[in-house]
């Protein structure tokens, strides 16, 4: 399995509080992604990164921010959590050496906003 660790694996938080999810990789891959998974919607891209300090928005980025200060870490922050952000969050990585490679996924973080 690709070396991807997401933390925490589970979290319950209150509406209005900030929350940070961490994705850590040991593969030295250039591309990193944050997705959320919701029934009926599949996986939707929140933000992605194509290098240190290089990030961009995905299709559902409102209410989320990211940072990547090191190759191995990609942080997702919910600035003020809302109930609509209750979801399962997945981090994925992909190497840059060949662009036709698959992405590898972490185990996910189940976030509940009450």
């Amino acid at each position, binding site marked *: 399995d690709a070396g991807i660790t997401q933390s925490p694996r589970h979290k319950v938080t209150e509406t209005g509080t900030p929350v940070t999810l961490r994705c850590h990789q040991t593969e030295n891959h250039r591309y990193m992604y944050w997705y959320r998974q919701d029934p*009926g919607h*599949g996986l*939707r891209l929140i933000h992605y990164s194509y290098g240190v300090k290089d990030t961009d928005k995905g299709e559902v980025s409102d209410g989320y921010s990211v940072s990547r200060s090191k190759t191995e870490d990609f942080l997702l922050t919910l600035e003020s959590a809302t109930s609509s952000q209750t979801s399962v969050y997945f981090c994925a990585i*992909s190497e840059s050496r060949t*662009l*036709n490679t698959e*992405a590898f996924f972490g185990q*996910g973080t189940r976030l509940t906003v009450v």
Partner: protein
Amino acid sequence: AQSVAQPEDQVNVAEGNPLTVKCTYSVSGNPYLFWYVQYPNRGLQFLLKYITGDNLVKGSYGFEAEFNKSQTSFHLKKPSALVSDSALYFCAVRDMLGTYKYIFGTGTRLKVLA
């Protein structure tokens, strides 16, 4: 815009019968297509990919996929289904026009009946 569609929310098949999970795509240029499987409470696992070449792609766990350019389809197949194949399956396409993000379908739940 690049996209994939999975027209079936659920597919039921009897154990030992062949299975097909459907995926159609819409891309500009040559498509880079992927299939993933997700077991309960797990991350996504890569099954196979189409880049170029043979239209029949073989992957993990006995799965294969047929690429059809004229029908813009990339259906996942297996000659003989196992109960253990029951899972959620996702089709994905990689955006090769600058962002290199992976775009996923909504998923198809496969249920193999004993």
